[in-house]
């Protein structure tokens, strides 16, 4: 256990009331609960309002290109599996431009915790429609209403054989912290879609709206995150949005499978020229 303050680098300049504050809080709490040294954490972010997370959360940070958080995070994790690698993206970053990378990271089951802050808009670029924008919504880019049917990250993650699929709500920072912590403890890829109102541009999916339209699956009497068809069903419900740990499964993680030796991080391998072995290999060229 550490103090939450350990990870507080600066006060965010997000719009007052933005859901991202809840995510920031939850992330600090989860890290504190895990007692992580800030130096052992790398937060890899996408481009968007969510991408400012690195400015506020105190740890190593990598704010790369729009949509490419997952390849970067995978590279980091494989080279140094001892690091706790956390991805933070937005719905545009993860489900639009980064959709391919997201699902490939899911299927590989790399040991990364991936938080997608889903405000159902491209907020940093002033509120255009995103892949989770509700059908018909008027945005700056859809003056006559969105004509794209939305998709949901958790459904896709389940379909791509995700081993940890969850949904949080940024108004419930405590619960979200619990999910993030569980995700970090999960061996393999942990995916958390976070319902997170953008108070500036999204006048539809507000805190109130979510309060009305979500329910906690942990409170459902017979729900178990071990049952894939249940998860599928609950995710396909039309009436209300399920929040909680939807699905979890044990499976070897990518780095266990692909690295010759997870105990010898590539990051610190001795690079001096191994002449003897190389000379033997060179014999193949004769």
């Amino acid at each position, binding site marked *: 256990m550490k103090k939450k303050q350990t990870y507080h680098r600066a006060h965010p300049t997000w719009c007052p009331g933005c859901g991202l504050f809840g995510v920031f809080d939850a992330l600090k709490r989860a890290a504190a609960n895990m007692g992580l040294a800030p130096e052992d954490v790398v937060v890899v972010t996408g481009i968007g309002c969510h991408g400012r997370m690195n400015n506020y959360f105190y740890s190593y940070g990598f704010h790369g290109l729009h949509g490419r958080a997952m390849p970067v995070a995978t590279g980091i994790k494989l*080279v140094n599996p001892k690091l706790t690698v956390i991805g933070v993206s937005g719905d545009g970053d993860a489900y639009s431009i980064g959709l*391919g990378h997201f699902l490939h990271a899911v299927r590989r089951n790399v040991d990364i915790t991936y938080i997608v802050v889903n405000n159902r808009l491209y907020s940093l670029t002033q509120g255009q429609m995103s892949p989770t924008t509700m059908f018909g919504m008027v945005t700056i880019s859809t003056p006559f209403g969105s004509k794209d049917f939305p998709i949901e990250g958790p459904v896709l993650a389940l379909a791509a054989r995700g081993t940890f699929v969850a949904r949080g709500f940024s108004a419930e920072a405590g619960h979200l912290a619990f999910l993030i912590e569980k995700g970090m403890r999960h061996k393999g890829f942990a995916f958390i879609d976070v319902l997170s109102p953008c108070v500036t541009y999204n006048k539809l999916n507000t805190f109130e709206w979510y309060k009305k339209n979500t329910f906690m699956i942990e409170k459902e009497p017979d729900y178990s995150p071990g049952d894939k068809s249940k998860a599928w069903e609950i995710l396909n419900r039309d009436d209300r949005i399920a929040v909680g740990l939807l699905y979890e499964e044990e499976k070897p993680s990518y780095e266990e499978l692909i690295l010759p030796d997870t105990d010898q991080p*590539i990051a610190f391998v001795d690079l001096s020229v191994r002449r003897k072995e190389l000379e033997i290999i060179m014999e193949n060229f004769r």
Partner: protein
Amino acid sequence: MIKDLSVMIAGKAGDGVLFTGNVLARLLKRHGWEVVTGRDFPSNIRGEPTRTTIRASLNENYGPGDLVNILLAFDCEAILDNLPLMAAGGTVLCDGEVVVTPPRDQAEGKTFHKFPLRAMAREKFGHEIFKNMIALGALTFLLDLETTLFEEIITEMFLRRKGEEVEKKNIQAAAYGYEKAREITLARERLPLARKEDGERLLLSGDEAIAFGALAAGCRFFAAYPICPASEISHWLARHMPQFNGVVIQTEDELAALNMALGAAYAGARAMTATSGPGASLMMEAFSLAGMAEIPIVIAHIQRLGPATGIPTKTQQGDILQWVFGSHGEFARIILAPGTLSECFELTTEAFNLAEKYQCPVVLLTELDMGQDYRTAPRFDLSRVRIDRGKLLTQEQLLGIQDFKRYEFTFDGISPRALPSSRKGLHMVESLEHDESGYRDESESNRMRMMEKRMKKLKKASKDLPRARVWESRKAGAGLITTGSTLGPVLEAAAELRKKHVQAKCLQLRTLWPFPVHAVKRFLDECDRVFVIENNCSAELATLIRSQVIPLPEMVSILRCGTRSFRPREVVEQVEKAVR
């Protein structure tokens, strides 16, 4: 005694043309010859015309020659296209249903033999697959090569992987082909080759040399997406990386490949990716990130013919300017271009040092004919491989530092580097403009300093880069400037020109960026006429030179806009025409 010859193997995709050529190359190499293969393939798995030409010389061997001495065709139709390439006195062996009558003028002076490879294979060995061994046996006879050396190679190929029976049957097929050739050919067709010691020499492709160089240089993370003609680097490393505790990842696309490699490099690996044509365009965005975030990365680009999907199996030098001037925004980059097989190895090992010393992307730019063709080379000297990780700080060093700043403004623009997980090294990697600690900073004063810092790294680097190489030091009438695999034909052309009393000297640019202005100026001063020779349509190298060197004498561009590299004669003729 013969000291130089070319053998072409032709057929259809699926006939084993490449295999046959590569075995012949190895055989010739074992006889002490210098060898280079020249593959010419369709971008299709089956059924279309395919050929490979093995050029072999007793001494120097620069690349593909002008003419072919022996043509072995798995398909008699194939000879029609190739006859114009044949030298006088050449021999043709061919198999196939169709009887082909070559035009009289082209057939003159050549000997034709119908050689029913498939039928022999089927009848004598029960399967057409033995046609290639029979063919190789026949060539062994024609070139008067040692059958024991050939058997040795067959054993290496088959014994361990396929077992004794297969090995034996192949040796028999080879012997059969040898005898059959003796039966049907005339004594004057035989080309008794001179011999030399094989010694410690190697025979490998440029892709393999790059892969091996990467392994030697400590590359432990390789991420790439399959693409012709770069995949071989990946395949080779996939087999050998685990032994060195490294990993090869096949990513979902090229965007992921470079971004993943950047993540890996940031975390501390010597990391690399390899690609070609369309893949390179897809990497342009992350290339810019590498520049901005100052992440050491090596990108091998094996050029194929564009634009778009182009012709994936043909060579060209059409992507030079993309790497020099491509990608959005302005940042430091280093572009190296090996011109020989040895340089594929050496420049690769050097690329990793440069990337870490100057904390920027390093591009290793070569061509399909260098990447995929096989060449002989002296054994690579591992004792000369040095690992220099630049300003990468150890944990101990970091603990001794007061206030670590990843992007500290320093005299040479190069800042200290710390790996994630290090204590006292915490920082941000930021694709936005950032301050010395890596945090977003959009102020003009910071921006100006940061740009200057990042750009000035190249000033220091210039002294540290592979130097342009000059062949022949005297003042010359014709100065030939070139780069990459075009070096071979240009050197051969220069030798030929000198025989014709045109004093020619060559300049090979091994670093394309930062541009070696002084080396080029010095060279220009020493030549009366200057030619820039490159395998593309729009004179990219010449354009680059013009953009960097002032004032500039007139230069004549010698270009190829076709589907293969230069033949020496094509250079000779154009230079002669201009000089005379």
